[in-house]
């Protein structure tokens, strides 16, 4: 099956005939990623708020996120399948779990890095704790938050391909199908598109970040 075959790396007419499928899997990949990072960020914000409100919570919450991050992806998806089946839910539970540590840690690092003088000045101006968090600390933490979002997004785009092993997976479908049929075009197509998607997402976030936080412009 895997004898060295003389097939070309890309059969363009196959790609042309399957543009609909390519668009469908690409879209699925984007959806799975956006959903995972979106839900992950929402949970991280809630957890971050709780950790700021009650500091002793920080260490155990980060430890749980770290343990979640520690479970190998294929193993995690495999363990979830008996519970939630071969569904998007299974994929998302795993994907969201992996984003949490990255997003929460960067959020907390960003909040901690707010200079004490700034905090004091805002408190002196009569800011309540909630207003201090929303109007001063969070905006100043944006560069760190965005750094976390970028890493989480790029990582998730890679991990989504693994969910193809449980029947989800967007572009991962091409990797698995191409591998099983020994059809290079699909393998190349899936790989190239996944990398391209990651690069585009990373650049898009970098662009948004520059808009939102002009003071932190990198050279």
């Amino acid at each position: 099956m895997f004898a060295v075959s003389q097939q070309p790396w890309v059969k363009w007419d196959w790609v042309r005939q399957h543009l609909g499928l390519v668009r469908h899997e690409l879209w699925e990949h984007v959806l799975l990623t956006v959903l995972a990072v979106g839900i992950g960020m929402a949970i991280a914000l809630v957890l971050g708020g709780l950790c700021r409100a009650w500091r002793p919570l920080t260490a155990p919450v980060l430890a749980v996120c770290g343990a979640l991050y520690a479970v190998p992806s294929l193993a995690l998806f495999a363990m979830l399948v008996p519970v939630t089946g071969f569904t998007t839910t299974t994929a998302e539970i795993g994907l969201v779990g992996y984003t949490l540590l990255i997003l929460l840690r960067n959020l907390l690092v960003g909040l901690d890095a707010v200079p004490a003088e700034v905090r004091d000045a805002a408190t002196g101006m009569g800011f309540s704790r909630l207003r201090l968090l929303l109007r001063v600390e969070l905006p100043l933490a944006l560069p760190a938050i965005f750094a976390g979002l970028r890493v989480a997004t790029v990582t998730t785009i890679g991990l989504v391909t693994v969910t193809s092993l449980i029947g989800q997976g967007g572009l991962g479908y091409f990797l698995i199908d191409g591998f099983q049929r020994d059809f290079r075009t699909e393998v190349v197509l899936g790989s190239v598109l996944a990398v391209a998607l990651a690069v585009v997402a990373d650049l898009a976030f970098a662009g948004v970040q520059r808009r939102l936080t002009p003071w932190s412009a990198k050279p």
Partner: protein
Amino acid sequence: MVGQALTGTLASVSVTSVARWFADGSHWHGVDGLPHRLSEHVALSAIALAIACLVTVPVGAILGHLGRGGLFALNVANVGRAIPSLAILVVAVPLVGIGARPAYVALIALAIPPILTNTYVAVREVDREVTDAARGMGMTGMQILTRVELPLAVPLILAGIRTSTFQVIATATLAAEVAAGGLGRYIVDGFAVRDETEVFAGALVVVVLALAVEALMAGVQRLLVPAALRHHPDHHLEDSPNETVHLAA
């Protein structure tokens, strides 16, 4: 195989069924026995990591010492993260065949970025005054690198190796997809015959292995970091399993 649609009723996995799987003597002998699959998994991971370290630490250290190629060293991490391991695995098969070789390609590629970035940053960030003092004492560039910069860089380099180790052990599970053996076999084979207990048991062993090695590496790190550098406030990164997150900030 696994990629095919796997719908239909799922047998339930229970604590007793998993316990029975582990108690079954046939899972402890032969090619498909736990000892053999575990040793395959460990060997695959260890060799990939060793090669990655041997190649990457010297390159990162020299680049950091010279203060050149920083953009390269840092971007390798970002680009590396963008390439899915599954993609490297399946692209490598037509190039190097099926079995352990594509797995090595994917695992080495996975291990390099964290080690390279951390080594570069660690050597680069050694306090300028320290290296100036060493130069003033008449040390050559090579001596400064090996006797001053590298010892000071140990905590961050080890943190990078730890990150890579962890990811490699987890990802070696995927190697079973290209017939490279290892603990992933149980997951892949269990899927193929819809034996959820086997899938769960295999996943459990991988998780335990990953956590055990992570704990072991934390201990090794504590032992190897020079005494003077322990509990140093600047080295808060050493305990982070994902320190590149900070570096990206």
